[in-house]
């Protein structure tokens, strides 16, 4: 006699994985974007210190990506 076992995946586990991916991947994306901008901004600041404000702004612009990731993760939860 053949018995079939049906395995069901716990949806909350999948949700957690999804949330993790959302934060993790967007974090990597922000990091990739910020590393280039940040090093360029520091280079510019070495030339002219008054560029700190502009450098900071440009550096944190990609930060929005990971914030969105975090928001998505919270939504999934």
């Amino acid at each position, binding site marked *: 006699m053949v018995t079939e076992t049906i395995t069901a995946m716990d949806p909350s586990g999948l949700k957690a994985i999804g949330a993790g991916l959302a934060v993790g991947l967007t974090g990597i994306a922000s990091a990739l974007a910020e590393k280039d901008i940040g090093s360029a901004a520091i280079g510019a600041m070495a030339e002219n210190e008054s560029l*700190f*404000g*502009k450098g*900071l*702004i440009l550096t*944190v*612009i990609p*930060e*929005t990506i990971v*914030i*969105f990731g*975090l*928001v998505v993760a*919270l*939504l999934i*939860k």
Partner: protein
Amino acid sequence: MLEPKQMSRAVIVGHKSIFEETVDALHKANLFQIEDFNEDESGLLIGRPFENVDDVSKKLIKIRSIASLLGVKDVGSKKQDTKSVISSLDATLDKLDAELDVKAEQKSKLEAELKEIDSLKKELIPFANISLDFDLYRGYEHLSVFSGYVKEDVESAVSRITSSYEIFYDAKESTMVLFVTKDKAAEVADLLAGFAFREFRIPNISGMPSESLSSITSKESGLLKQVKAIDEEIESLKDKYSDFILASNEVLSIEAQKSETPLRVATSDSTFIIDGWVPEDEFVELERIVKAATNGRAFVSKQEMMKEDVNIVPIEYNNSKMAAPFQEIMDLYARPKYKELDPTTLIFISFPLFYGMILGDIGYALILLAMAVGIKKMISSDAIKPLMNILIYCQISTLIFGVIYGEFLGFPLASLHTEHGVTEGLIKGFATVNLLASPVADEMITFPVHRTHLVMTMIIATALVGFIHINIGYLLGFINENRKHGISAAIFEKGSWFVIEIGLFLAILGYAAMLPSVTTILGVVVFLIGFVMLLKGEGIKGPIELPSLLSNSLSYTRIIAVGLSSIYIASTVNLIAFEMIWQPGTPIGGATIFAIIVFLFGHALNTVLSIIAPGLHSLRLQYVEFFGKFYEGGGRKYDPFGYIRKYTEE
């Protein structure tokens, strides 16, 4: 309040005979910014510095070189009378210079001697264990002397070549001294080459090596003592004269500044014309000062501001004392231009507001408040003070939001009711009160607000706060644009955003069936009108920026997102310390101490993060989302001709 100070362009004209008096008076008044004169076809020439400039700058160089030699630091000291400083300046400076010269000469002599001794010592060390007078190393007619390093004892090898030799070998330093007859010298030299022989110079002194070594070592320590004594004397000179150096440096800097002023001013054969800027409300005062100093012989006149002047007007903030620290945040970005609104007062409200909304914890607020007040009391630096004031404002806001959120170092103060039952808060018996049901996600708005259980509501609420903030930005942009390019440019560039927003609202409300469905169509029409206006106002750049309306609003959800991450760090620290390592109620032991250490370190770390994360994110919301809507900046700092005295007074 939202404007920089009004400025007037003023021109001061007079005969050259009163040039110095005028410059003196302007310098003392410290409210007139000189506009540098560039020679042009007008026939006017740049002036020549006053006569005393050579003398002053010579003394200034001397004082500054002495100051850097002695390492005089800027310290708060009693203010001295300028006149007495000037009268004693020459004599004291000469005396100090002479004293220092003597000391420096003595010191360099001693240092040269020390260097000599050091090199002699290096030569002596290899011979230290060979007890042979240095006089016996030289002055032979038939003997050759080999002295130097060999890798092992060579006596047996030498004895095979000749029997008439004399060898001294020190195995510790691998030094060898070998005497052989001259006829065997070449052969022995070949042999030694096989033992990695390296010749040492024989020191040009007499006596036993060990004795010489100990005598020069003691001489060296004596010299070092003398050098130290001289250093102490120089140090005492520094203590004695540092007040004089600081005061005279200041007096001379002021004199030099005054003497060089003619280089910035237009002159003819017998007149001078000083052009510059003065705050409008100070103009009368300027006029009075100049008239008083010159017996009314110099003329001060107000010039009409030209259109191209707007770009070069120096900018002085005009904010209330409360909001003034936030000028630092403005300067970090850029000073406003003359015709632009100065948003310092708005930042004064919104920066601490967002900071508090993010952090919102009574415990951290109290810690950081104590820190900020302490640092402000201890350090009197003008650069630190405004930053500490900003931090204090932020902590007050954090404290208020901490009460609203009911959080203390990551612990909830009130009890928490969830499906899993009731979790007791830090304050026993302080129960959470349900206020009203949130319109989103079946959440209940309570007091205190448990952020961790109201995530959806808070996301919507923060995005809404952002939307309002952005619209204030557009409103300011409208005002700025109106001033710079007129009302029609303002309506097309900034007003179009409001039209677009209204259109979107109508369309959404109609679509969601809150209003009759015809409003959807009306909304779309209004949106399209706004879109066309934007296209006309901003060109192709406008439609590209359209999605920013959504993304900028959503960017404000960082207020809750960063706040939650801070809570989770704090509560994780609490969990590790007081659940995993040691549970309150169980016997106190080693684990208790460990738990407390973990608790302290964890929260110390989170306290540091609590300055950086909310600070940077709040700053970014101002700079990127808010300023992007209206602010240009790039104004020149108002830096009046004068000097803020620290060490002297008139």
